[in-house]
């Protein structure tokens, strides 16, 4: 097919090969809860994986912010020693 030819030709000039990229994208896909369960048969396009990664990172950021708010709220109510413990535990994550 012409697709094979053109792809191999293009990847020759680029720094990493297409296979390497696909491997990394597959690894990335395994980390995504949305795409983790998709079978090998229905191949998720790389752009979709990357998009989902972006979404997931954003949601994780939101979650971290939310949790840190909750934690700081909770830690204010606890006594200082315990709060210091937990704070030092969580700050160095």
């Amino acid at each position, binding site marked *: 097919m012409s697709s094979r030819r053109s792809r191999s030709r293009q990847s020759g*000039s680029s720094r990493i090969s297409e296979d390497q*990229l696909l491997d990394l994208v597959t690894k990335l896909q395994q*980390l995504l809860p949305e795409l983790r369960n998709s079978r090998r048969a229905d191949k998720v396009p790389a*752009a979709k994986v990357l998009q989902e990664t972006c979404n997931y990172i954003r949601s*994780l950021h939101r979650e971290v912010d939310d949790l840190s708010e909750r934690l700081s709220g909770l830690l204010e109510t606890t006594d200082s020693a315990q709060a210091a*413990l937990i704070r030092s*535990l969580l700050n160095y*994550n």
Partner: protein
Amino acid sequence: MNHFVPVFEMEDDDGIPSSSAFNGLKKSSASEDDIMELLWQNGQVVVQSQTQRSLKRSPKHDGGGGLNPADHSAFKEIRPSFHDHPALPAPHLFMQEDEMASWLHYPIHEPNFDQDLCADLLYPAAPCITAALTAATGTASATTNVGGPPVRPLQNQHLAVARPPIPPPRKPDVVQNFAHFSRHRAAAVRGNMAESGPSNSKTVVRESTVVDSSDTPALRLNSRVSEAFVAASISDNLGGTLSVSAAGVSGGAGHGAMAAGPSTSTKTTKDVMTCEMTVTSSPGGSSSSAVPATQSQRTEDRKRKGREEEGEYHSEDAEFESVEVKKQARGSTSSNKRSRAAEVHNLSERRRRDRINEKMRALQELIPRCNKSDKASMLDEAIEYLKSLQLQVQMMSMGCSMVPMMFPGVQQYMPPMGMGMGMGMGMEMGMNRPMMPFPNVLAGGSLQSAAAHLGQRFPVPAFQMPPVLHPDASRIQVANQSDPMLSTLGASTLGQQRPPNFPDPYQQFLGLHQMQMPIPMPQNQLIPQPSTSKPSSSPGGEHGDGHQSGTFFHLVSLQFTVIVWITTT
């Protein structure tokens, strides 16, 4: 092509719904209709507002001396035949055309992306131009076939020539620009050629693909035509007006040879050829007169403008020559189909790559401290960052669920919480982690003597383990159930506290810690009776101990201490 490609703005595109390059790329299929419409309007506009254009052109070139008379002579020829056209709402349409042209000039100044963009945006439009100009010239050729004077085709040709380049490019590196123009020119020429017969239209289609592929260096489909063409445009670009005038002359010569070519032997096309001879001769004269313009230190802009026009004419000639070459070289339609399929595939592949690059860029913005330039390390960082984020969220949610447990009043909620955490975290995280053995936790309190000499180096046993306070068996059983889970949890969090991209202050300590982890185990075995046999220590002393050890020791021990302490408080 990586994510360092700047995102460039195109402000003044009116009909095209794209504000950035990627939007334009993405929507290029969607905006085909718009471009089609615009260019169709262009075709009509050019036909109908020629007097306006000539009026507008003349003040622009009045410093150029020789350019002007040539143009004027050409336009003077045109005008009488043109006045029988009804004067339509030309200014408005003309404005649109101008905007379109300036928009078309825009991406040329970007060093990396212009090829993709231009090819993407223009390639779908090229057949439309062909159609439009075929329609536009169709009327004229009809009159020519009837026996009209050759002024009419000349007019068409000149219209096509004069169409795109009114606003000059702002930077001189316009190889792409010429390709661009020449594509228009090819389309226009196609418009004229298409009159001569269907065989010509076939070569026209093939021509379009070949021209387009010569734009993209990744393809290099047809070496001969594209080389000739690129060489021509480069000579136009790099050489001064002198070489340009030479090119114009050679173009005229090639044109003459082309006009003598046998394949387009229809009467109308011959008319077109002869008229084009006159056209190309007129830029030849204008170029020769543009040389004194440069010698007399005219402005760069004007020079460029003049050069650009020469380039147009010349590339047009090159186009014609290449058409001839094409016709003689390969006449089969299978190669045509194949090149078209390759072209379509190339387009889709390019779109895919552009989408991926766009997402890569978005991903890079989301990852802090990611200054990697190639995709592989970008993806690596993304994977690691994702893992660390997941871990952080788990830790924080664990912390959130921990904090309520620290209140004495909610102590009874501890076992289900511990179970839940143990199930959730231990199953998920602790699989390949160093597992802390179950007696180690429970025997923590009984290890005080052992911990006394270990304490300075190994903090966990040094922490006085508060025994399970309640003497009833069910409570003990629950604690015993939940404890291995939580110890698993503690061990797993210890083992997993290594987000590789983060500054890890206690990384070396972790190694030490895990290395020393088996040390207390035999001591655990040495003491058979774990914490249930120990007398319960007072909460105040326990708290003080915990606090002391927590401040005394490192953070990992803190973490472990907190977990263990929570299980047993």
